[in-house]
């Protein structure tokens, strides 16, 4: 098969993940978009590994490493989401504005 078939699928999957991460308001759904993007990257790694017939198996090994990093990321991110839910009572990312850079007129350096 042509190499660009899996690469095209990976590109579209990445774009769908971008859409999910940008458009969703629930923090858990944003994380699902991130997972889709990571899977698209893994698809690229595996496709190039098969095409190059890599004797080091760098593509497949790095796909495994990306899976591990995604697992660590999702564990930490869900801990943060639960902490946000405990302190705010909701996980709507639009309404979490404590760290936003606002122009406060009365800002003084301590």
């Amino acid at each position, binding site marked *: 098969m042509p190499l660009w*078939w899996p690469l095209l699928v990976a*590109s579209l*999957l990445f774009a769908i993940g971008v859409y999910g991460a940008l458009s969703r308001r629930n923090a858990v759904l944003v994380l699902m978009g991130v997972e889709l993007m990571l*899977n698209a990257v893994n*698809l690229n790694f595996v496709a190039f590994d*098969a095409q190059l017939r890599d004797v080091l198996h760098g593509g497949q090994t790095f796909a495994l490493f990306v899976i591990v990093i995604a697992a660590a990321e999702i564990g930490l991110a869900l801990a943060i989401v639960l902490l946000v839910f405990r302190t705010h009572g909701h996980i709507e990312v639009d309404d979490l504005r404590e760290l936003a850079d606002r122009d406060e007129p009365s800002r003084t350096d301590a």
Partner: protein
Amino acid sequence: MTWVQVIFVLLSLVTLGSALLVVTTSHLVHSALWLVVTLGAVAGIFLVLAAEFVAWVQVLIYVGAVVVLLLFALMLTKAPTGRQEELTARRVVPAAVVATLVGLLLAVTVVAGFRDVRLDLDRAVVGSAETTGTSVFTLWVLPFEVLSVLLLAALVGAIVLSRLRGGDDA
């Protein structure tokens, strides 16, 4: 088209269709369940592309652990199980524009760059557990160990974050 190509195209269609449902459905739990379909189809694509061990790890870690974690998070944040209209309320149009631009850019780039390259799956080395394990534990030992330190740090971080406040020193 050979049967490998037919299987690949079918799995790709399942992947993309269920991924679209993941990001557009208005049921929170359905989104997580469609994610299972997406990740399972991606595991099937890994199998087609001769990455056997990666496919099984994908099923174990993603379909097994990550989706269960996501469902637990939905449960612990008291997510309503019914239909919700305001999940993607405000930023649909800019998000769709950005995603379309990203997809177009990536797709045009990869198709233009690798249009003539053939992927010969008959001669590809199948990444079985033996070959993958040999390469991980001979050539990629240092990244593997660094990754275990990263996992330990993530574990400690998650425990610290999820500990209840108001304790002895928190």
